[in-house]
């Protein structure tokens, strides 16, 4: 679970400096050399023996610009061949305003304990590579030489980070365990940072001291607050299926610049409280100014709204219009990348362009619309205690009509009105209004993943079932099917490949309704023929009604769970079968009607079968009502799926009435 809290700045005036310093390179203890297995985690393939980092703000003598001076040093014991991956290093160097973070003093050595001493193999600098990953990111990559199980590897480097806004975050927890990790941050008193610690692990110690005259800025001496964070015995982080961003759970410390006080007396606020953020956003050229561009739509509005009368149908018309006008370039962002005017002209834009254009267009149509900034699931949860504006990587529209509100994202052409893509279903978003203060709003899926399948068919004496299968889908189920139809190129192709995958079922004529009416049920109707059983003769036979969406895999097959199961949206699947039999039948064995539920109405699986003369009716229902299940509910989920799998193995046994 996430534990975010603010670390208070307490200044301890110590008589001397707190003891915490970088450890000596290449000098090992006997335990480190002799270690064959990590006692706290015998399964570890590698373990960080010691890790040390320090970061302070410094001034460039030539440009007079401040930067973060970061020193990193780690020592890792490789225990098995599988631990060799721990020797691959990728250091991110960002590029801001054409200036990139600079790396220097890279030292990387492998020590192998042979002939009674740790023999070093130094990584030649020619084996350190720089890859230009994107316009904003360079990667420095290397791997350690001469590795074998038992090697100790040691790496250190200095990094100059040009953007001081996020100072330098520190990740305590990683995919391999760490014995100890220490981070020292040294912040000049004039720089005020918000500091947050995330993750389940607790700091072993945290100390802060005041360092007098640590930096000289424009001739003025300034004190620093020097904080030392230490975490010991950090377990390896293990990722699980159905979880949101790993960064929500890995223990780490991060910073965001709040304000800078100048010696001249003034203060520059970077982030202070939501009121400041509101002002910043609403006056930003890439945000608020774009929301206000209602003028771009005035000419088009009469055409867009020609068939719309009430506010809801107007909102729907505008939503459909924007989806058609701007194609998503697959870049995220809460800010407009190109300005919405340009995005409308080129028909291309990032999330900011599209949804800020949507907000402007809706406002132009006279519909009360606000912006909601949020963090996508892959990006992690936002800090809810105070604004960390860099946490947000997405913007959507919130439309208020009467007492109802709708969350809209126009990046996915096939989304129905009011449904967000799953990537946006992540905790809370912050609603930004041009006139009123911002507030939090829950980001929930407005619809479940919903399907209803009805088979109306008859069984002929030779064992063939012929009938009509109709499937209604809505929410994420309809979205997925519409995306498949679009990807197939045509409904014909979609049905053909569907038919090809259905073993034992032949598909004849079909009809798909509402492919383009996104707010309606997608209705698929198929004429189907299938074989019912393999035993000829109809006096007594076994019929298995689970011909659709048979569950063979239990997605929750493990015996324990550490983190919540986050599905994003609930599930609701129902099947009903009405089968006309060639004569009157009864059940030879009374079928077991399954009915199991999750605690707290979390979900349900239910089946029932009845027979009345020559008509067999069968129905099944499977629901998951919650988007998120806690770790202690995992075994219930597992049992629910297990019940489905077991039930689907059973047949209905029918006997002819003599």
């Amino acid at each position: 679970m996430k534990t975010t809290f603010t670390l208070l700045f307490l200044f301890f005036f110590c008589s001397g400096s707190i003891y915490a310093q970088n450890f000596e390179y290449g000098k090992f203890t006997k335990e480190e050399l002799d270690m064959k297995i990590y006692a706290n985690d015998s399964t570890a393939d590698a373990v960080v023996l010691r890790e040390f980092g320090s970061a302070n703000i410094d001034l460039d003598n030539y440009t007079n610009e401040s930067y973060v001076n970061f020193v990193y040093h780690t020592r890792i014991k490789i225990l098995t061949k599988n631990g060799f991956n721990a020797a691959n290093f990728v250091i991110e160097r960002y590029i801001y305003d054409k200036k990139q973070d600079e790396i220097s003093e890279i030292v990387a050595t492998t020590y192998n304990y042979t002939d009674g001493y740790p023999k070093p193999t130094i990584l030649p600098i020619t084996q350190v590579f720089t890859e230009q990953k994107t316009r904003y990111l360079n990667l420095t990559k290397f791997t350690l030489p001469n590795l074998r199980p038992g090697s100790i590897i040691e790496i250190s480097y200095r990094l100059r980070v040009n953007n001081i806004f996020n100072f330098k975050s520190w990740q305590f927890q990683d995919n391999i365990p760490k014995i100890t990790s220490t981070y020292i941050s040294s912040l000049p008193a004039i720089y005020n940072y918000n500091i947050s610690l995330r993750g389940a692990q607790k700091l072993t110690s945290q100390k802060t001291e005041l360092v007098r005259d640590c930096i000289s800025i424009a001739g003025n001496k300034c004190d620093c607050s020097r904080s030392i964070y230490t975490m010991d015995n950090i377990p390896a982080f293990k990722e699980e299926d159905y979880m949101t961003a790993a960064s929500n759970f890995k223990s780490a410390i991060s910073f965001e610049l709040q304000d800078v006080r100048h010696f001249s007396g003034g203060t520059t606020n970077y982030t202070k409280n939501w009121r400041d953020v509101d002002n910043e956003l609403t006056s930003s050229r890439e945000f608020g100014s774009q929301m206000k561009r209602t003028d771009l739509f005035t000419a088009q509005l009469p055409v867009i709204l020609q068939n719309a009368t009430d506010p809801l149908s107007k909102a729907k018309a505008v939503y459909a219009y924007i989806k058609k006008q701007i194609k998503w370039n697959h870049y995220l962002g809460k800010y407009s990348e190109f300005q919405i005017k340009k995005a409308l002209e080129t028909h291309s834009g990032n999330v900011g362009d599209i949804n800020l254009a949507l907000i402007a267009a809706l406002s132009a149509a006279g519909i009360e619309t606000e912006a909601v900034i949020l963090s996508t699931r892959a990006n992690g949860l936002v800090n809810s205690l105070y604004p960390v504006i860099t946490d947000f990587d997405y913007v959507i529209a919130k439309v208020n009509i009467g007492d109802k509100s709708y969350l809209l994202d126009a990046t996915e052409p096939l989304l129905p009105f009011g449904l967000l893509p799953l990537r946006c279903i992540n905790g809370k978003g912050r609603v930004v209004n041009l006139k009123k203060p911002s507030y939090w709003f829950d980001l929930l899926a407005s619809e479940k993943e919903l399907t209803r399948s009805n088979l109306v068919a008859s069984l002929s004496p030779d064992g063939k079932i012929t009938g009509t299968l109709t499937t209604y889908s809505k929410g994420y189920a309809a979205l997925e099917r519409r995306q498949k139809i679009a990807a197939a190129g045509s409904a014909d192709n979609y049905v053909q490949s569907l038919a090809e995958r259905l073993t034992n079922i032949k598909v004849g004529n079909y009809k798909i309704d509402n492919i383009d009416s996104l707010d309606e049920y997608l209705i698929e109707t198929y004429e189907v023929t299938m074989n019912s059983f393999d035993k000829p003769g109809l006096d007594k036979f076994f019929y298995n009604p689970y011909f659709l969406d048979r569950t063979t895999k239990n997605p929750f097959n493990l015996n324990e769970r550490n983190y919540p199961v986050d599905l994003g949206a609930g599930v609701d699947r129902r099947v009903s079968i009405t089968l006309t039999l060639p004569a009157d039948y009864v059940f030879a064995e009374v079928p077991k009607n399954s009915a199991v539920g999750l605690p707290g109405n979390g979900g349900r699986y239910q089946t029932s079968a009845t027979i009345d003369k020559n008509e067999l009716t069968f129905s099944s229902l499977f629901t998951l009502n919650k988007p998120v299940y806690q770790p202690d509910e995992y075994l219930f989920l597992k049992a629910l799926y297990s019940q489905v799998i077991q039930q689907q193995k059973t047949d209905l046994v029918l006997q002819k009435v003599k």
Partner: protein
Amino acid sequence: MFKKTLFLLFVGLLHQYNVHAQPGYKASEIPTPLLVRASAVIRNMETNVDMVATDQVIIRIRKTVTILNKNGEDMAGLVLSYNKSRTIKAVKGSVYDADGLLIKKITLSDFEDASAASDFSLYEDERIKHFTPSVNSYPYTVFYEYELRLKQNLVIPDWYANPYTDVAVQKSSYTFSCKTGEKLRMKAYNYAGKPLESSTPGMISYTWDVVNLPALKAEPYMSSGDNFLTYVKVAAENFSYYNTKGTYADWEGLGKWIYNDLIKSRQQLSPATIAEVRELVNGIDDPKEKARKIYQYVQDKTRYVSVQIGIGGYQPISAENVHYLGYGDCKGLVNYTQALLKAAGIPSLYCIVYAGSFKQNLDPEFASMNQANHIILCVPFEKDTTWLECTSQVTPFGYLGDFTDDRTVLACTESGGKLLHTPVLTAEMNSIKRRAQLTVDMQGNITGQMKTIFAGSNYDNDEELLTKPYADQLNLLKDIYDIDNINFEQLKIAQNKGSAWPLTTETCNITIPNYMVQSGNLSYLQLNIFNKTRSIPDLKERKLELYLNRGYSYEDELTFALPENLKIEYQPQNINMETVFGDYHALITFKDHTLIYKRILTGKTGKFPPKAYAEFADFINKAYIADQNKIVLTLASSKK
């Protein structure tokens, strides 16, 4: 904060372009037959390759593509790769709507730059520039015109008339030009007729062209595209590559150049390393045992790390460097192993191969540099020939597995290249044999022991498991066997690497709560638990040859001890299917409350005409259904 900056402003407003629709861009002009199964249509594509000199090859391409639906989007963009010896000289383009009216002009500044390094590489110097247009309604048409310059002619890209699936081609042509008298080898595959020759003073050109190729749909179990696609390979006898020059006319010449110019100088070892190798094999007489020892040494010392820069794409880093770093890519590790073997007096062959589970041969009749993607080592001994995969730290000595089995490779030697064929893995060899003794109780719980032996291409099935800690192995195994509620205990994975025929033996205890399901008086027991066939699509029409890449044989024998008071209510019939594609047997014997289920599935290799697919799908899908079979049991005391 991470805002993309736009380098160039799009000039003008949209309507300024909308002057006249230009012919060739209108979607309605596409002949109807080409629309069948197509998501995009290449309207016209002209590929001109001009080999001005050995170190200057100019590639000029003009192409017009109409995108019919979302599935064709991949064809709308353009991705151009470049590196030190391949530069993008010029690129421009335009986008047209359905009626052929201009919507947008494209210039180089619209392209985004990115690294083209593959995920498995630490570093590659290959980069790309890419562009994707933004059009929200279909159909629309894109036109591109670009020029690439190669500073080498060792690798002249092959021309494919239509390498894509779901894409039709209205017209496409390839012209290769060079100075008269330049020695060339050319080969057109699956192309009827001869290239059109034309010449101007001092220059000669060859042109291949195709018209109206319908869209091809990817089909399951199809053979390699090289068997049915139209493509042309061109190789120049005299070539430049980075700072080297050379000549080859066949595999013999190419293999010779590779060895003498790329490898030979990389094989030196320091006297200390040579002494270390000799010490290592000291006292061993049998050359094969020496080689085994050295291979083990390489596996313990090195690991695979891929770094590809410039000529380093073809030339290994030096053996002594690998010795120091303890890592290298396939070339580097093979070259290093070869150097070590040489130090111990054992000759071996550096072999280039196209690796992958899907078998692909070098064309014996046409030598060229771009037919392989991997290097392995061949060690000929007096009685047998041993093949070594040098990038793995765990592969048994002499085992190639399904990554490089059964295919034509080129051995590069000082005296010349030689084509060899790697060993075949037969269906009998690629076996999985399983025995399980299981007890079923009245609640339907199963407990028991299972032993599975993997061989041939299946030898390394558990390899990923072995890279994980024990607790993760158990979890992963749950995923592999994918049986509801199953739990594994006492898992042991033993690999017998030393023998001529390596085997992996997996033994474990299993429990499966509630496996047999009760409903009223009936209990349902699905017989095949561990190795179930998946169904395959039942195609309406099959266009391509059916190709079965590799044979296999699976044998499962499950013994169920059933509760004494249960008797069989319904038992599926025994199944015996024998076909040209493979055999399936499922046999049930029941005696003294013990049920033995034996299931055998073998798959053969081969090529079959398209219409055979229906029979093949029928065979596999019957096996799929038979694998779901269950017996129904009832209480012996209950009276009907």
